[in-house]
């Protein structure tokens, strides 16, 4: 396989999935995520042991994946914002059944059918929704095609390692970013399967996989097992990027996805004008890289939050922000990506007035 390829975000996820040993992709075509289905369908014939299936609806894609995972498959699905409820329901079932799944969610603009422009308005529904019935799933938030390749491999490692569903959340703008991805930097190794697949008894005692549990104590045991898994997940290396162009007390920006990409561009432009900022980019919303964020905040008197929703990201991070820190927000909604000049002048103004 070629080391480097020029790919857009969704394609990089697809390519990385194949390199991570994905055996089946179950997809349903909806704008903003269907190019992943197209890309993988194009790779199917040349990739032995890998299949692509288009389902009749997103829900069926998840549950075909559920059956395939039960039989030992390493599966992936994708939805856009409109089908987040299907994703949440699936996370609940995969969590209860201890089955691995990687689900890509491409965020577009709502509510309702909305439009196909990018947004970051699925943050709270995914963070809260994946807790349905006390289930949970890691939510990774890579922004660039290179980060998406790494996040996809990480997602399969987490899914197989902990036997759990994992979400890769990407906004519709990042999904279309194009760059040369150097897959040799990801460091793929064979991910060991950790489960006895359900394929008929074949000489062993029978296996039953059900999420129905009528016994209250046994149900409590299941929840305790999930809690233990969550604790083990929180021990994993936190995922974030820190761009340190200034001193510790320089203004701190926090953003993920396309907002982080644009923030980084604005920072570069401001550097030329002698204004140095730092950027904290979480590469996961759950588990959130809390310790690193708190550390970055320690000396920062001012925090600049960029987000493409009506403040959903604020709601996620506000609990980590000490009262002594002044917080400034920049939201774009409706599907507009914050422009570099907008961010630049916002930062210039706020930095000048808050000195």
């Amino acid at each position: 396989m070629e080391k480097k390829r020029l790919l857009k975000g969704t394609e990089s996820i697809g390519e990385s999935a194949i390199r991570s040993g994905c055996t089946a992709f179950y997809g349903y075509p909806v704008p903003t995520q269907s190019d992943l289905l197209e890309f993988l369908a194009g790779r199917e014939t040349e990739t032995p042991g890998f299949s692509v299936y288009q389902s009749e609806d997103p829900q069926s894609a998840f549950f075909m994946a559920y059956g395939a995972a039960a039989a030992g498959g390493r599966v992936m699905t994708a939805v856009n914002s409109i089908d987040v409820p299907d994703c949440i329901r699936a996370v609940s079932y995969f969590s209860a059944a201890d089955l691995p799944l990687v689900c890509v969610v491409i965020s577009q603009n709502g509510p309702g059918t909305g439009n196909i422009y990018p947004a970051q308005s699925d943050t709270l529904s995914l963070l809260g929704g994946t807790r349905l019935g006390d289930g949970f799933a890691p939510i990774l938030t890579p922004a660039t095609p290179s980060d998406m390749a790494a996040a996809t491999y990480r997602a399969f490692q987490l899914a197989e390692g902990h036997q759990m569903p994992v979400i890769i959340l990407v906004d519709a703008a990042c999904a279309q970013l194009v760059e040369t991805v150097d897959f040799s930097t990801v460091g793929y190794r064979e991910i060991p399967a950790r489960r006895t697949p359900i394929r008929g008894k074949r000489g062993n005692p029978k296996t039953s996989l059900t999420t129905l549990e009528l016994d209250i104590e046994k149900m409590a045991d299941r929840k305790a097992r999930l809690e233990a898994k969550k604790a083990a997940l929180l021990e994993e290396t936190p995922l974030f990027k820190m761009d340190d162009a200034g001193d510790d007390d320089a203004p701190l920006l926090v953003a993920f996805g396309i907002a982080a990409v644009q923030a980084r561009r604005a920072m570069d432009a401001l550097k030329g004008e002698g204004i140095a900022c730092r950027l904290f980019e979480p590469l996961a919303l759950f588990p959130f890289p809390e310790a690193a964020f708190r550390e970055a905040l320690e000396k920062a008197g001012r925090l600049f939050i960029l987000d493409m929703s009506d403040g959903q990201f604020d709601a996620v991070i506000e609990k980590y922000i000490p009262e002594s820190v002044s917080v400034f927000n920049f939201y774009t909604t409706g599907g507009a990506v914050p422009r570099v000049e907008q961010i630049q002048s916002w930062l210039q103004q706020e930095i000048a007035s808050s000195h």
Partner: protein
Amino acid sequence: MDLKFEQIAGFPKSLSETPQHFCPGCTHGVNTRLLAEAIDAMQVSETIVGVCGVGCSALLPDYLDIDMVAAPPGQALSVASGLAHEIGDSGLVFAYVGEGDLYGRGMSTLMHTAIRGEALSVFCANNLNTGMSGGHMSPTSLVGQKTASTPEGKSAVKYGIPIDFTRLLTDIPKTSFIARFKGFTAGDIKKGREYIKRSLLVQKYQRGFTFVEILGICPTNLEMPPTKAVQWVKASTSGIYPSGILKTPEMGRIQ
């Protein structure tokens, strides 16, 4: 004189000894046994995987001594398809699902699974109501039938006239063996056992989508003693849900 005995009946190997939760007189018990007998007769207990739907069939994994996966509402055939994709020719996959689950929430999935021609044997337990939920109207409930959600009887004006869903499947090119039986008399049950076996056989050697509907009773929700429930179902469904083979791989659509 030496007498040689040959066992011709007994407790099916693939039936577990776990006491079943089904109400007295319920035909789910008969169906479960028939599945076990067919699995034994086909000698596939080591390579078969079963999928059950929700409701009264959801505890099937406890009653059959084979690998089983329980599916969420409406999604039994998606789960079964995924299993079949991974397992391929090395095993068999069947699904046992109630009609409320399969013809209601699962209708779109049923049609598309059949259209794709997934290598599955699907068994639908049709007892004219959604049993486990407490006897509510299902897609096959008859016009005038009193259920928990149609206390005055199912209204044709409001809900239309139920159709023979099994027959719908016969028009789909990639379905191969389709049949229906009533699980009531010894004769019916004998025929039914053959249908279940044949459906597994077709799947094993021809890899097609096979479908057998088992018309049964839910005496609890019909609020009738089992014998009366049998009489009522027989009398009121004969023109709507006829028994027999509807399609075979050799002859195509028969009925």
